[in-house]
C-alpha cells in the first residue's frame, strides 16, 4: 500500500510541476513578500485630523504646534474642501467657531473637541501601552495572515481543479477502477500534495514576512491552522471538480466562494463591523484561528478542533462517494 501511495504521490507531484503549479505558488510568495516588505508596511498609516486656524487678530494664545495657521477665510475653505477630514477654527470674531465637513455623528463630536483642545497647551500625556506588538509587526502579521488565507482559498482551490479536470477528461479516474489498490489512496495522495505545498508556503510566508525571530514561536500553531484550512479547501475543490461538469462551471463556484464567502469574513475579522450571522460562517472561525495563531494567541477551544476534524471527515466521505460515482460511470 505504501509503495502504491508513493508512486501516486510522485505522479501527482510531477503533474503539478508540469502544470506550473509550483511556479505559480513560488511567484505568489515572491509578490506577496515584496508587497508586504516594500509596500504595505511603508505606506499604510493614518494620522489624526489636521486642524487649521484662521485668527487674523491673534486672539488665541498658547496654541498647540499641531495647528496649521491660514491667512484668510477663503484659504480655510479651500484647505477644508481638499482635506475633508480636517477641522477648521475660525477665530476672526474673537471667539473660536469650529468648521468642518460632516463625517459621522460620533466622529464629528471628537473632531470638534479635539480641535478645541489644541487651542490650549496641556501637559503632554502618553497612553499606557499594554500589548507586545509594534505597529509594524502588527501590519506584517495581519497582511501575512490575509494573503495566506487568500492563497489557500483561491490558488489552492483553483490548483486542484487544474490538475483534476485534466485527469477527469482524460479518463484517468475511470482507469483507477480497475487498478489493484485502495481507492482512497488516489484522494489521499492528491490532498497530501496540496497539504505539503500549502504548509511549505505558509512556513516561508511567515518566516519571510514576520521575521525568523518572531515567527519561531508562532510557526507551529500557524502550520496547524494552515493544515486545517488546506485540507478543507482541497477537499472542497476535489469535490467540486468531481461533481461539476467542466472547468467553466467550476469557475462559477470559484467566483462565488472567492467573493461571497471570503469578503464577509475579511470584513468581520479585520474591522469592527460585526455581522450577526458571521458566527455561522465556517470560514470565519478558520480564518480567526489562523489570525489568532499569527498573533500568538492560538485557539484552545476543543469544540473548534472537533468541528474542524468532523468537517474534514464529512468532506472526505463526500469526495469518496463522488469519486466512486465518477469511477463507476463506465464501470
Amino acid at each position: 500500500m505504501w509503495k502504491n501511495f508513493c508512486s501516486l504521490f510522485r505522479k501527482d507531484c510531477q503533474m503539478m510541476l508540469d502544470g506550473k503549479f509550483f511556479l505559480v505558488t513560488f511567484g505568489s510568495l515572491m509578490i506577496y513578500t515584496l508587497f508586504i516588505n516594500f509596500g504595505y508596511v511603508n505606506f499604510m498609516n493614518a494620522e489624526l485630523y489636521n486642524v487649521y486656524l484662521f485668527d487674523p487678530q491673534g486672539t488665541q494664545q498658547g496654541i498647540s504646534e499641531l495647528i496649521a495657521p491660514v491667512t484668510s477665510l477663503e484659504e480655510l475653505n479651500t484647505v477644508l474642501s481638499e482635506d475633508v477630514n480636517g477641522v477648521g477654527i475660525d477665530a476672526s470674531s474673537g471667539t473660536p467657531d469650529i468648521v468642518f465637513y460632516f463625517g459621522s455623528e460620533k466622529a464629528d463630536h471628537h473632531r470638534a473637541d479635539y480641535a478645541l483642545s489644541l487651542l490650549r497647551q496641556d501637559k503632554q500625556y502618553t497612553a499606557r501601552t499594554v500589548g507586545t506588538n509594534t505597529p509594524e509587526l502588527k501590519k506584517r502579521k495581519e497582511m501575512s495572515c490575509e494573503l495566506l488565507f487568500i492563497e489557500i482559498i483561491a490558488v489552492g482551490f483553483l490548483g486542484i481543479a487544474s490538475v483534476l479536470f485534466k485527469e477527469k477528461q482524460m479518463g484517468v479516474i475511470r482507469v483507477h477502477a480497475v487498478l489493484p489498490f485502495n481507492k482512497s489512496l488516489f484522494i489521499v495522495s492528491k490532498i497530501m500534495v496540496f497539504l505539503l505545498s500549502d504548509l511549505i508556503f505558509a512556513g516561508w510566508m511567515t518566516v519571510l514576512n514576520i521575521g525568523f525571530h518572531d515567527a519561531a514561536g508562532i510557526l507551529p500553531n500557524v502550520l496547524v491552522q494552515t493544515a486545517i484550512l488546506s485540507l478543507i479547501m482541497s477537499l472542497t475543490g476535489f469535490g467540486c471538480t468531481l461533481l461539476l461538469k467542466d472547468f467553466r462551471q467550476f469557475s462559477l463556484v470559484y467566483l462565488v466562494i472567492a467573493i461571497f464567502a471570503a469578503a464577509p469574513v475579511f470584513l468581520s475579522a479585520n474591522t469592527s463591523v460585526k455581522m450577526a450571522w458571521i458566527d455561522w460562517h465556517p470560514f470565519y472561525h478558520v480564518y480567526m484561528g489562523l489570525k489568532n495563531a499569527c498573533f500568538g494567541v492560538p485557539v484552545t477551544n476543543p469544540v473548534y478542533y472537533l468541528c474542524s476534524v468532523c468537517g474534514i471527515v464529512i468532506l472526505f466521505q463526500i469526495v469518496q462517494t463522488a469519486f466512486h460515482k465518477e469511477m463507476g460511470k463506465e464501470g
Partner: protein
Amino acid sequence: MRGLMYQLKSVWKDKFCIMSFLLPIIVALTLNFIGGIDLSPVSEFHFGVLENDLSAETVSWLERYGSVAVYESQEELITAINEPSTNMIGVKADGRSIQTMVSGDELDLFRQTADTLPSLYMGRENAKQISLTVLKRPDMMAGLQNIFIAMTLIVAMFMGCTFNAMNMISEKENGIDLVNQILPMTQSGYVMQKISVGFTGGCLSAVLTACCYFRLPVKHAILMLTLIILSAFTAALIGLFIGKFSESLMEGVVYIKIIMIIFMAVPLVSYLLGARGLISVFCYFVPSSASFEGIMNLADSNKPVIAKDIFILAAHGIIWFLLYLLISKWQKKHA
C-alpha cells in the same frame, strides 16, 4: 451585423459570461435595496472600560465619541485592547481625570486619540459652549460605501473583457477558429465583431449597475455614460488580447482573474493611500484608475472635472487598439 448576432447568441448561452454579466448588477441591487452593510462602526472609536470604575457621566461622555464596552476584570479589558481586529482604547478613572491604555500596535490615529483623550476630558465643560458649523458633504454616496459602489461599477465596466475572451477561447477549443480562417471574412471584420461582443456586454452591465445606484442629473449622466463607453471599449480590447494569447479556457480564466485583481487593486490602493506625484501618474497606466477617479469625482462633487480621465481612457483605447493591430500584422508576416 448578422455575424455579430451569432456571436452574441453564443455568448448568451455561456453560463460563465451570463454570471459575469449579472454579478455586478446583483451586488448593486443587494447594496441598494438592503441598504448595504452598516459601515459606520469603522469610523467610530471603540472604548473599553472596567465595570464600576468610571462614573455614568464619563461613560456617556465617551459614548459621544464611539461605542463603549464594559469588562469585568482588568485581564479581560487588556485582552480586548490587544485583540488585533479592533483598535480599542482602554479608559480608566484616575482621580478627577482619566487614564488611557492602548495595545501599542495600532495606527497613529488611535494612539494620538488615546494620548489626547484625558486633555479632552478635562476640557469637556468648555467644549459644550463652543459654536459649530457643520458643512454638508454631498450625500449621494457616504463614507466608505462609495468605494464599494465605485468598485462594483469598475467590475461591471471591465467585465466586458470576459465576454469576448471566453468567446474567442471557446472558438479556439471547438476548432471554429480554424474554420474562420477559411471563411470569406476580413481580419478587421473579425476584430470588430469580437470588440463589439465585449463592448456590448460591458456597456450593458455597467449601465444597468449604474442605474441601480445613481439618480444623476442629465449632464452628469452623459459624463457617466462617456466613462462607461470608453472603459467598456478598453475592456473589450483587453479581452481581445486575452483571447488571442490564451490557448485554453483555464489559462484564459487565470489571465482574467489577474487582470481584474490589478484593475481593482491599483485604483483602490492609490485612492486609500492618497497617491500623489509620480506614483499617481504610474497608476494611470492601468485604465481602471482613470475610470475610478472619474466615478468618484462624478458622485462626490456638484461640478465634476473628469476631462482628464476621459482623455486618459480615450488614449488607452487608441493605444491598445493600435498595439493589437501591430501585433496581428507582425504575426501575419511571420506566420
